[in-house]
């Protein structure tokens, strides 16, 4: 053993605990804040210990309404977020795994041109081209629809890029062996490539799910019908009270609620996610 002095291990634990504490601080405030009566945020300082309004606050948000101006129940927002996140995740993984497959395992004219066209999308995040993208969606009559929420966010090369990295590390002998066995590209894809990229797909699933779930500006802009509102953007409606005061206790409940599903996905799929993520970059 290298580190056999107990104090050094104790010190390591101590530093880690401090780290965990600092990382958790904002969420602690949210958790505590979600149990406070309405006024306790604006007078004095933010409470650091639980109040007695927890049940009422949570019940209010869960059963009364989500953002105070929205007239749909919060589970509907959750559902929309889920549809959007899953749509983006599945859509992106599906189109990028096949395009990465084509780019790595085939040689065809314009291959690198196509790769660069796809790759360019990494350069301009949606925020930067938001108005023209909105116009495109409007022209296609996709405002207030799940496809409008999902499709523009699929147009990004991150997943294609990661799959390409992963496929490039697959030895050529495998392809050769498959060809000798008489397996065509389709069978190779389903029988060999897909099983081999399981962990990468899992990692991407987590990354994309979080990316989709956490979208904020885009749903805000293209939805006008609250049956398509998502949970993260509903926070905005609670924060933008032009001259009144913010109901921080409800904001905190909704914030926790909005971070719960992606956190559950990350923690639940932690092993696969970590493995896939770290391997993909190697």
């Amino acid at each position, binding site marked *: 053993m290298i580190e056999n002095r107990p104090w050094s291990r104790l010190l390591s634990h101590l530093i880690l605990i401090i780290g965990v504490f600092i990382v958790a601080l904002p969420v602690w405030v949210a958790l505590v804040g979600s149990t406070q009566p309405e006024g306790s945020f*604006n007078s004095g300082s933010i409470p650091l210990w639980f109040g007695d309004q927890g049940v009422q606050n949570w019940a209010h948000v869960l059963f009364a309404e989500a953002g*105070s*101006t929205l007239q749909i129940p919060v589970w509907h927002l959750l559902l929309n977020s889920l549809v959007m996140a899953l749509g983006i995740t599945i859509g992106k993984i599906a189109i990028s795994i096949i395009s990465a497959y084509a780019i790595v395992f085939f040689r065809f004219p314009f291959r690198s041109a196509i790769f660069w066209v796809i790759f360019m999308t990494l350069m301009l995040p949606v925020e930067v081209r938001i108005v023209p993208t909105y116009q495109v969606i409007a022209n296609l009559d996709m405002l207030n629809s799940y496809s409008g929420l999902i499709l523009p966010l699929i147009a990004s090369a991150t997943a294609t890029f990661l799959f390409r990295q992963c496929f490039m590390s697959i030895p050529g002998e495998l392809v050769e062996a498959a060809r000798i066995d008489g397996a065509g590209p389709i069978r190779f894809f389903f029988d060999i490539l897909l099983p081999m990229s399981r962990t990468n797909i899992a990692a991407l699933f987590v990354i994309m799910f979080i990316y989709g779930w956490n979208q904020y500006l885009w749903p805000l802009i293209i939805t*006008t019908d609250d049956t398509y509102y998502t949970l993260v953007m509903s926070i*905005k409606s609670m924060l933008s009270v032009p*001259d009144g*005061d913010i109901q921080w206790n409800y904001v905190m409940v909704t914030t926790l609620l909005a971070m719960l599903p992606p956190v559950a996905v990350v923690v639940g799929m932690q092993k696969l996610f970590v493995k896939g993520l770290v391997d993909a970059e190697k």
Partner: protein
Amino acid sequence: MRKSMFATTVLGLSIASSSFAATEIEWWHAMGGANGEKLNEIVKEFNDSQTQYKVDPVFKGTYTETMTSAIAAFRAHKQPAIVQVFEVGTATMMAAKGAVYPVYKLMKDTKADFDPSAYLSSVTGYYSDVDGNMLSMPFNSSTPVLYYNKEMFKKAGLTTPPKTWEEVAAYSKKLLASGAQCGFTTGWQSWVQLENLSARHDVPFASNDDGFSGLDTKLLFNGPLQVMHITKMHEWQKSGIFSYGGRRSDSAPKFYSQQCAMYTGSSSAFGGMTRNAKFDFGVSSLPYWASEVKQPNNTIIGGASLWVLQGKDKAEYKAAAAFLHFLSTPEIQAQWHQFTGYLPITHAAYELTKKEGFYQAHPGTEAAVLQMTASEPTVNSRGLRLGNFVQIRDVINGALESVWSGKETPQAALDTAVKRGDMLLRKFEKAHN
């Protein structure tokens, strides 16, 4: 539980999708929080009151996001019939002649019941053209007032709120001596401490009658009055009389937590005050400099108004007109005014509120109305009409912050702000000729 909720939603959806003969129009707004709930209630009342029209209220985020979404939607031909635009967006909306349907014209074309003189002139002035025609319908208007902590005042031996800035300084010294941490803090500094300061002392904020009579406007807020006021505030900041707490209403908690004994902010913050201030507080008019004027002008408004957009059909405009008429009825206006703390926009609503005894029951709520109606607005207190005003406010906030942090002198900071603001105005002018 879940089952019944599901059932009601399905029911709700099927009602929403089954088409009535009613004409439906959308109204995009920026009212979040409790005010948003009230807004929904009012719309529901309208929808229930008749069967011809149906208004869909759509929350679109902050004022800025609401306006930009509406503009983006207009460019894509998906605009709502009515959109709520904050006061600083007024010039942009006005200049877009092909995009907006002026309210006075709408009311005339649809032969709706509409009497411009029923509205408070200090409110409608902000939204009217040079000939006095109302271009948009005022909806939620507020004006700056002074809130003061009666208990802290008592402790310092003070009985009345300060009327002038001279008194604010003198009172603050007493308050500090009696243990207060600061005399006063302010919300919305550009609006309260420069725009309203200029209006109240009948000094122009910008040329062209504060931008009403042309696009080649130049900013004038680096004049002697404004520089004097900001210099004073900077001195006060150093001696603890004034404490800065943010650009918007971020500083209100300084008042709630009794660090500061006074707060100059929007009259519409009254609701929040009642909920958050755990002490007896009073509302008074925005101070003025006794050394500069004997009788101050009215203050100018903030808040937002409703604009009708072009590109809809006749039936939809009839619906819009009917809805705007409904919003102006004394009952609805009085309800909105009393719930939110925004100003009543018609004389009738004010009278009704008075008759109902609201002002007696809630002392202080009348201060803003009285201050708005005390005098007829002059060219300097009608309001401001500046293109790119959102960014100009940003520039002003930056300049004031560089004064508060001691980086620049008041004169230098305001001069730079005027120069930068003029560049924004030229840009706006170029895009609109």
